[in-house]
């Protein structure tokens, strides 16, 4: 909400300067996001008088003008079509002056004639939008040549940009902000009466006899001249849906001349971010910015049947709005209709057919209260957010209708030189009843943690407009003001007291936090430990968006049974990931594109899967990718392969579980290499997989070389850790171990793991460990075979082993190697 500090000062005269006001209202919840000073960037620009005016000798469209700036005459070439007669006053930039846009005015030749200075338009001075012609100082303005423009035109102001929270519709107009400033600075600033129209008439037959009316005169200051009632059609207002339109008022202004607005009005609207159109439309906008209450002007003579009906649309009904777009409505949209059809979308935008035009003479001014939800739904559905809908959907003041009508009628009559009816129709379908709220000072003190004098609370609440109904020792009952729809229960009033006093007034205290029974779930600590383990093992953590495209999932050959977004930002991010693989390998692909030679990444995040429950299933997974070369010591780099992945997974699991994991061939996802991947299990439970990515998938993902990928299912892993429990200590062995080696030639199809397991079992429980210490293929080894050498460590926990026992066990081990694996013992 752009706010004029000048206007605030008019509505609430206080001593404080703009920075102090900005600070106080910010602290109280009206956050001032920026302050812009107006009129300060016009230094050096002066009013000047036209002395002579002659055509340019060479160029048709240019004029040679001599101006007097209070000190000297300057000859200027001017391109504007509206240079005034000698004696007229204009705004002049002397040579050397810097315009608000940063342009420095220098003498220069235009069509062979030296021009020293520039006669300025509104737009060039950034005080308005008009760039068509130069600005001509009003005859009534008493400015003299040489006067500074900012002073002469009264341009000094500060514009505050206030970021309003949606609970404060009362501050969507200057009257409301002034009221708030008044409360904070201890000065009562209730809205004042409007100046009042110069000419008025009695509505009489202009309103149909059954119409309820309200007298506008008490809201006007000053004397007015009564004139004869113009001959106007007799109007009626009918509300067909009182829930959605509890109140609808209409004032009447007759005999207006639609034309340009005076400069002060255009300047104010310009500073507050609104375009200027015509005096009547500008007036409705000014009333909106003053009261925060949108009004709408209808050309009375274009209202068919001289009636206004507020009703719900019929499904499929259409109307062109002011912006020229044909709109189609549903039965949930509230319309303002005349005798034949819709003329406005209630609270959102007027219709094109009944809008104010240059030839409009008589105006019906609407000021209503519409139900906020209704306006919001229509505005959303139409994708049409206007200054009007913005206010109605937050809730305007239903009780302000007569005063706003009085102000609007007065201003429009004055600017358009018309006459206003002294009464207005005020149809109330559902009367406003103030909310009565009980306030307990002890409760306020208890919630805020600081005692507050009862009198102080009462003073603050009454200053805000609450009306005291009843007061007892322990509580008082108040009625909230009609402009504060956000005040409905005690805590709302407690907040008011707290924020008006200032949150700084509340002391700080550190609570004693009582421990809860359940504490932090173990799995969250476990996840944190997994991350630390992954980093310790050498991985960098990645965080990817949780949504991507189905194509990406397809390309990665992961599940496309997705949870899809109904309203994605783009097709690229329309499906929730079913796997971390596409995102994480994507990071690897980009890293390789950047020339990274070694990529080591992990991500620990959720994947999403449709389920039979109302909410999808969310799985937490640890995913790992290794790509490029594993760096060795000075030039010892070599490409990552399966064993790097396996070692990494072992290291991570060992760190968090304290137990060695098993790697066995098995069914891995389709995107993994069928021959270079393994299932990871712990304590005989599957917890994930590791291996190399299928080369075809790697190509599709634009990865280079062998890329290692692993996934660990965090939930499964957590189950295993729970089962395994806490590691238990054992005494160290008392008796020495004996080691024996066994080397063998064996066919490739037998895995080292299964051989080791078999050898261990063959030892009759005597083997403490079987450890592969050598592997050899190549020279002197038959095709399809390899040489494996195991070191078997024998130990009897109860006695010292004799050679004889070891020999016997080792012979069994060799026998199994020969018999079961057809190994040749070397």
């Amino acid at each position, binding site marked *: 909400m752009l706010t004029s500090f000048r206007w605030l000062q008019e509505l609430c005269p206080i001593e404080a300067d703009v920075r102090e006001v900005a600070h106080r209202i910010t602290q109280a*919840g009206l956050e001032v996001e920026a302050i812009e000073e107006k009129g300060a960037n016009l230094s050096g620009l002066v009013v000047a008088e036209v002395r002579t005016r002659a055509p340019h000798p060479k160029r048709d469209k240019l004029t040679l003008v001599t101006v007097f700036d209070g000190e000297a005459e300057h000859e200027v070439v001017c391109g504007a079509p509206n240079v005034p007669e000698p004696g007229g006053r204009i705004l002049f930039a002397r040579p050397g002056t810097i315009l608000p846009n940063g342009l420095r005015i220098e003498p220069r030749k235009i069509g062979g004639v030296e021009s020293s200075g520039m006669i300025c338009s509104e737009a060039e001075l950034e005080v308005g939008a008009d760039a068509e012609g130069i600005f001509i100082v009003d005859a009534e303005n008493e400015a003299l040549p040489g006067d500074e423009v900012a002073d002469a035109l009264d341009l000094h102001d500060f514009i505050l940009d206030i970021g309003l929270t949606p609970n404060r519709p009362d501050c969507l107009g200057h009257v409301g902000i002034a009221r708030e400033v008044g409360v904070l600075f201890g000065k009562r600033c209730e809205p004042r009466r409007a100046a009042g129209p110069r000419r008025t008439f009695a509505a009489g037959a202009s309103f149909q006899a059954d119409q309820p009316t309200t007298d506008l005169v008490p809201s006007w200051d000053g004397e007015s001249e009564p004139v004869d009632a113009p001959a106007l059609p007799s109007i009626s207002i009918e509300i067909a849906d009182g829930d959605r339109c509890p109140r609808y008022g209409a004032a009447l202004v007759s005999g207006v001349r639609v034309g340009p607005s005076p400069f002060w009005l255009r300047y104010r609207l310009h500073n507050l971010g609104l375009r200027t159109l015509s005096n009547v439309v500008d007036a409705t906008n000014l009333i909106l910015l003053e009261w925060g209450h949108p009004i709408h002007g209808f050309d009375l003579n274009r209202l068919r049947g001289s009636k206004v009906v507020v009703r719900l649309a019929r499904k499929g009904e259409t109307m062109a709005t002011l912006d020229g777009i044909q709109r189609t409505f549903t039965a949930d949209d509230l319309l303002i209709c005349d005798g034949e059809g819709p003329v406005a979308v209630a609270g959102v935008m007027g219709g094109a057919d009944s809008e104010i035009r240059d030839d409009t003479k008589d105006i019906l001014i609407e000021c209503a209260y519409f139900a906020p939800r209704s306006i919001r739904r229509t505005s959303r559905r139409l994708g049409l957010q206007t200054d009007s809908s913005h206010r109605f959907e937050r809730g305007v003041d239903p009780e302000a209708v007569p005063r706003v009508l009085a102000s609007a009628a007065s201003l429009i009559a004055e600017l358009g030189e018309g006459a206003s009816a002294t009464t207005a129709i005020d149809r109330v379908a559902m009367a406003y009843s103030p909310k009565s709220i009980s306030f307990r000072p002890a409760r306020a003190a208890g919630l805020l*943690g600081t005692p507050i004098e009862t009198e102080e609370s009462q003073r603050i609440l009454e200053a805000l407009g609450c009306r005291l109904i009843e007061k007892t020792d322990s509580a008082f009952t108040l009625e909230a003001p009609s402009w504060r729809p956000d005040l409905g229960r005690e805590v709302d009033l407690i907040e008011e007291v707290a924020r008006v006093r200032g949150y700084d007034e509340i002391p700080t205290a550190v609570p004693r936090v009582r421990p809860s029974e359940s504490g932090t779930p173990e799995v969250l600590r476990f996840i944190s430990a997994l991350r630390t383990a992954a980093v310790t093992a050498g991985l960098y953590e990645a965080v990817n968006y949780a949504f991507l495209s189905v194509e990406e999932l397809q390309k990665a050959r992961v599940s496309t049974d997705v949870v899809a977004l109904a309203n994605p930002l783009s097709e690229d991010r329309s499906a929730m990931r079913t796997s971390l693989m596409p995102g994480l390998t994507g990071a690897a692909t980009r890293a390789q594109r950047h020339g990274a030679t070694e990529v080591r990444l992990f991500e620990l995040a959720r994947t999403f899967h449709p389920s039979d429950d109302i909410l999808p299933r969310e799985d937490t997974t640890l995913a790992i990718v290794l790509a490029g070369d594993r760096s060795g010591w000075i030039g010892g780099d070599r490409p990552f392969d399966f064993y790097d992945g396996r070692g990494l997974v072992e290291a991570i699991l060992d760190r968090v579980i304290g137990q060695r994991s098993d790697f066995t061939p098995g069914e891995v996802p389709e995107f993994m290499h069928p021959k270079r991947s393994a299932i990871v299990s712990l304590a005989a439970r599957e917890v994930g997989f590791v291996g190399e990515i299928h080369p075809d998938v790697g190509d599709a993902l634009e990865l280079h070389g062998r890329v290692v990928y692993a996934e660990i299912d965090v939930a499964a892993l957590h189950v295993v850790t729970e089962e395994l429990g806490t590691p238990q200590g054992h005494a160290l062995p008392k008796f020495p171990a004996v080691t024996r080696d066994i080397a063998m030639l064996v066919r490739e199809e037998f895995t080292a793991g299964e051989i080791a397991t078999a050898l261990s079992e063959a030892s009759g429980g005597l083997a403490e460990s079987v450890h592969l210490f050598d592997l050899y293929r190549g020279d002197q080894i038959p095709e399809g075979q390899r040489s494996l050498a195991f070191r078997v460590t024998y130990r009897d926990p109860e006695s010292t082993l004799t050679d004889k026992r070891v020999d016997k066990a080792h012979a069994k081990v060799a026998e199994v190697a020969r018999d079961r694996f057809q190994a040749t013992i070397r």
Partner: protein
Amino acid sequence: MAEPDAVQTFEDGLTKIRGAYEQALRDATDEPELRLVNGRYVGPQGELTKLLKLMPKLPGDRRRELGQRANALKQEIQTTFDVVLDGIHRRARDAELTGPSLDVTLPGRWPMPGRLHPITRIRNEVLEILVSLGFDVADGPEIELYENCFDKLGFPPDHPATDEHDTFFIEGGKPSGPHSVLLRTQTSTIQVREMSRREPPLAIVSPGAVYRRDDDATHSPMFFQLEGFLVDTDVTFAELKGVLTLFLRRLFDEHVAVRFRASYFPFVEPGGEVDMSCVFCRAWEGDKERTTACRVCKGNGWMEILGCGMIHPVVFENVGYDPEKYTGFAFGMGLDRIAMLKYGIPNIKLLYDNDVRFLSQF
């Protein structure tokens, strides 16, 4: 069978060895050479060893005496060997200790660890502080019911308060209403979930991913928040101020000033926003010039850091707590923003690019 010559040979041998061994051993310049020379006397084929093999041929009356002499000689050789070897070792060590240094600029050989993502890092820092104050950590789904994200938190239906929560909805679910399914827009959903299943006292913090349909230079459609709340009898706004002031000072700097101002979130009242003095220009130090030039706080010395307030009674009513019996406070912050402030990260997009050149900075 004694051989008279044997005695002569034996004695000659001892004499010869005695005359030569010491010089020979001392002449050795390194350990292998020393061991080679030593072997010539006492190795398996060494001269002294060979002599000792003659022992049986010596006459019985001399055998003992000659044997003792030979063994004494062997002992002397061993002693000399030890002395020379010590000398060689000492010289080698002195040479290393006084000679040229190792090229310590060559790379280390131990594998390097990776790094945590800055979001994880800041989450850990934040949790460490709050957990030390007694808060438990909780977690909840990222895909949520409308009612948990909005209705139960006191967002009125069709209310502009939802404007800041431009929401992603899930296809196939109900298009609207309390059971429509969406990506949570805030971690405040945890308030509803935890309060619905537990009784006070509750002190909980919950970090996690949230989603909003914003994607521009300063917004990411997925980002991270952390929600904290405390519910018990007699919890006060003063305590909210105390906890957050302490938290921010521990997280950033013990000198930061903290300022609370009124604001609005449907699920808290009184509601507020917290500003702290700018940590970039270190505004608390009072260097006006530095603060004026600061691009982060734009010269005003303050930065918005989090939202907070007393839990609204409507939230308690929605989860079945008695608002007359319990009070509580809640606060929420964007972890991305805190990470960006604390680690000086210039652009939110860097957080989700996963560029190792960026990730390795933390």
